[in-house]
């Protein structure tokens, strides 16, 4: 187990170094630097800029330092907790990223609190009576919601709840809970179908298993069979997938965050990428890698702990 954790962390370090090197390399080309200047100063200003002034601008931004030295400086800065400065927002990257992560964290929490119980309950209800009317209706809804793109759901919900009923704000630029409702609901509708279908498949498979037959033919009450024999084994797979959804919410929800103008991680990354805001992109990418590897690790460890065959095998 310890071996697994150490190996994963070492892998993570390698990925991070590789990704940051590639990004740095791309952003180091003269063409890109010029584009950055255009973004910051405007196209006309850059055209009229004398070469000397352009050099001065580069120097001010710290962009004329050789590649290796710049990368090393950035790396050692991270060790001190300094992620560099944003070109676009003239602010330190650390707090910017922190705020974005916090916002996305809130959104993720809301999504999980609604989605997990909803998906598990509907998935179990469907799987336990495979082929029944109950199963067919739940499966139909799950497929329906998963196949509608988030942007369509977002527009649909905004029209009904913000524009027509006026219950919730259409733009989520604020701190109250009401700002979270529509983005969270959009994500829940999209994601619950996936988790519910997975749960359904897992429960249905366990229901067909010989040990559930044993439990029923032992004369156990149905509730006991379901709770102790079916769910305990059937929820292992959904658990691992739910943990992996964390990763999806972090970087896969750009569309929803942008649509609702929600200042989360996805929006931050998108803005920075469009502007060429190197240090923000770098830091955000590292955070994404970290979350991806950690959620994978948690999911693997959880799987081992839940499954005695692997724990001792």
């Amino acid at each position: 187990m310890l071996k697994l954790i150490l190996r994963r962390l070492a892998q993570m370090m390698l990925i991070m170094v590789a990704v940051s090197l590639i990004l740095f390399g791309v952003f180091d080309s003269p063409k890109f630097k010029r584009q950055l200047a255009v973004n910051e100063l405007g196209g006309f200003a850059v055209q009229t800029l004398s070469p000397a002034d352009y050099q001065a601008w580069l120097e001010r931004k710290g962009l004329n330092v050789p590649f290796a030295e710049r990368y090393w400086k950035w790396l050692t800065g991270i060790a001190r907790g300094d992620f560099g400065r944003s070109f676009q927002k003239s602010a330190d990257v650390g707090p910017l990223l922190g705020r974005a992560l916090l916002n996305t964290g809130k959104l993720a929490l809301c999504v999980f609190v609604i989605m997990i119980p909803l998906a598990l309950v509907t998935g179990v209800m469907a799987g336990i009576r495979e082929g029944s009317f109950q199963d067919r209706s739940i499966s139909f809804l799950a497929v329906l919601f998963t196949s509608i793109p988030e942007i369509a759901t977002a527009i649909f919900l905004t029209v009904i709840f913000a524009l027509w009923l006026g219950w919730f704000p259409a733009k989520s630029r604020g701190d109250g809970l009401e700002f979270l409702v529509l983005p969270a609901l959009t994500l829940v509708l999209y994601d619950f179908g996936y988790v519910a279908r997975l749960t359904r498949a897992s429960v249905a498979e366990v229901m067909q298993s010989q040990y559930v037959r044993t439990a029923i033919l032992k004369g156990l009450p149905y509730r006991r069979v379901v709770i102790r024999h079916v769910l305990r084994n059937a929820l292992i797979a959904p658990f691992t997938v739910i943990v992996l959804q964390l990763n999806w919410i972090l970087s896969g929800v750009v569309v929803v965050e942008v649509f609702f103008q929600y200042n989360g991680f996805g929006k931050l990354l998108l803005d920075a990428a469009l502007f060429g805001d190197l240090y923000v992109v770098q830091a955000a990418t590292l955070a994404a890698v970290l979350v991806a590897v950690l959620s994978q690790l948690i999911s693997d460890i959880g799987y081992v702990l839940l499954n005695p065959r692997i724990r001792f095998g």
Partner: protein
Amino acid sequence: MDQALDRPHPSAESGPIVPVLECRNLSVSYYTRAGEVPAVTDFNLRLMPGEAHGLVGESGCGKSTVALAIMQYLGGNGRIVGGEILFDGRDLAKMKAEDLRRIRGAEIAMVYQEPMASLNPSMTVGAQLAEVLLYHDRLSRPTALERARAMLESVRVPDPDRIMAAYPHQISGGQQQRVVIAMALLSNPKLLVLDEPTTALDVTIEAGIVELIREIGAAHGTSIIYISHNLGLILETCDWVTVMYAGEAVEVGPVGELFDAIRHPYTRGLFASIPLPSADKISRPLVPIPGQLPLPYDRPRGCNFGPRCEFFIAGSCDSGPIPMLPVWNAEHRRSRCIRIDEIDWERPPAPPALQAAPPPGDILLKVEDLSKHYELEGGFLAGGGRTVKANESLTFDAREAETVAIVGESGCGKSTFAKVLTGLETATDGSIRLGDVELGAVPIEKRDARTVAALQMVFQNPFDTLNPSHSVGSQIARVIRKFGVERDEAKVRQRVDALLDMVKLPRAFARRKPRQLSGGQKQRVGIARAFAGNPRMVIADEPVSALDVSVQAAVTELLMDIQREHRTTLIFISHDLSIVRYLADRILVMYLGRIMEQGRTEEIFAPPYHPYTEALLSAVPVADTRIEKRKVVLSGDLPSPSDPPAGCPFSTRCPYAIPGTCDVVPPPVFEPSPGHRILCHLAPETLMAMKPVMSEREPETRAASGSS
């Protein structure tokens, strides 16, 4: 007609006794997209207290459906469409769910074919056992656990405390099955339904479970329904037997009487196709049942067995449904054969043309001191790696046209040896010579096409070894081209046709995909493929153990015919001593990677035996009332191959083990006659004085046992 089945019972002096279980004209169907599929039709059974009733038949005969119908567990698409199942006089099908729940696990308990799959992988054995008592007897948890532990002890599970705390995957298959049996016995049921309880187990482990089942019947007076495809097991465990075919009971009666005087052509066919000790490949070969089991929705009019029956007469056998008819002069017997009084039942089935045994030729394969060791990767905490000695100092040879059988239970290294021989693995030490080519350390990639062609394999599972997306013909043709037998396309096609003729499949099958073939037909294709490159030696690894008995006979006979004709050397790997006795010229008995005994077939089956051979022989169920067996039941499980005992590998289970010698010193070789080698510490006099395991029963005792 079940009224006619009334019979006196040993304890029937006072008043009528209610049968524990009675099936009356039971019919069960499954409903699929194709419509109603009848699984069981017009089935009758009456089980009195304390009796054991066997249901025997091949796959698809409906025997497991009967068991599931008794348990009222037919799944979403199965339904009882006619008749009733009375348990203690009450119809199970009409019972409310809650009443049914109270009966299941408490009064009717079931034991399943695959013990590993039947236990919950994420619950400890103790918790799964205690559950029964918590919900049926309303015991407190500590009392329930205590009772569960005591029950484990009474089914002779070693170290019950450890087993109670273990998860199912941490204990051996034999222990798992004992746990399932303990679970079934916890509430002291009136009826125990056993569905192939030993099919997934090794034969020496099976012998222990069978003994346990017999004790249960005797000690608790539990009535037993025993489902099996193995006629020998039924004879050893049951008082009554019902033979089933295509969803119907075809013959019923007391086991001994029925086995001695068969009154249905299907039962007769079954017995002719299993290798009883009296069968012999030269003088009394197996007689397969021709044809195939009819599909459930495509059964013939009249007798289901009609199209395959040698006594079939058009107009009477196929005119309408055939009822169970009484057997003349046998009060309790019934047979579903309309010609029961016309057939001469004493006439033995017509044997096929006799063939002379081919004289063995020169030595083709020479194995010397062959060893194959695997290094186990050490776990994180386990430290250094361990060595599994899968094969240790194997020495033997095989001649042209000879059949050498390797027998042993799981983990004995027989399949590893096949892998080394075919080059899928390479030997750690020692040599294998095929003709004058050294093969031991040569992996298959480095062998030339001629060597690969000379040494071919027939695999155990015909279902997985054919590529599902290529036609049968193209798979055989590919081998022909690869080994350079023929190059010209027209000649290749001719050769494919010739090979299909050889394995007695229609030539049109060349265009079929494997899924359109039955198991027996697929194995025929497997044989055709193995012989496509004109091999000098064929290794058959359990080639018939996945097939039904009547098909086994046909495939076995085919394999031997081809071998005789081509003078091929056959290495036949099997766990089944009956079939090995039938077809092998010489036998190697393996245990934990070593050859414990080798010799000619008649030498292996007669004393002096190696103690392990003796136990194996005693463990094989024999479906012949004339044969009396001496009981040698081994205790304990096979030791782990990664941690074998020092000294003799069999010393941990050997009833003759000499402490201080057998468990410390590797055994010496005793050679009672040239070529017959026994690896054992016992003194030659002790070995020579051993009595035969099987002997013919005296006629008087035979009659007595028949009515017991």
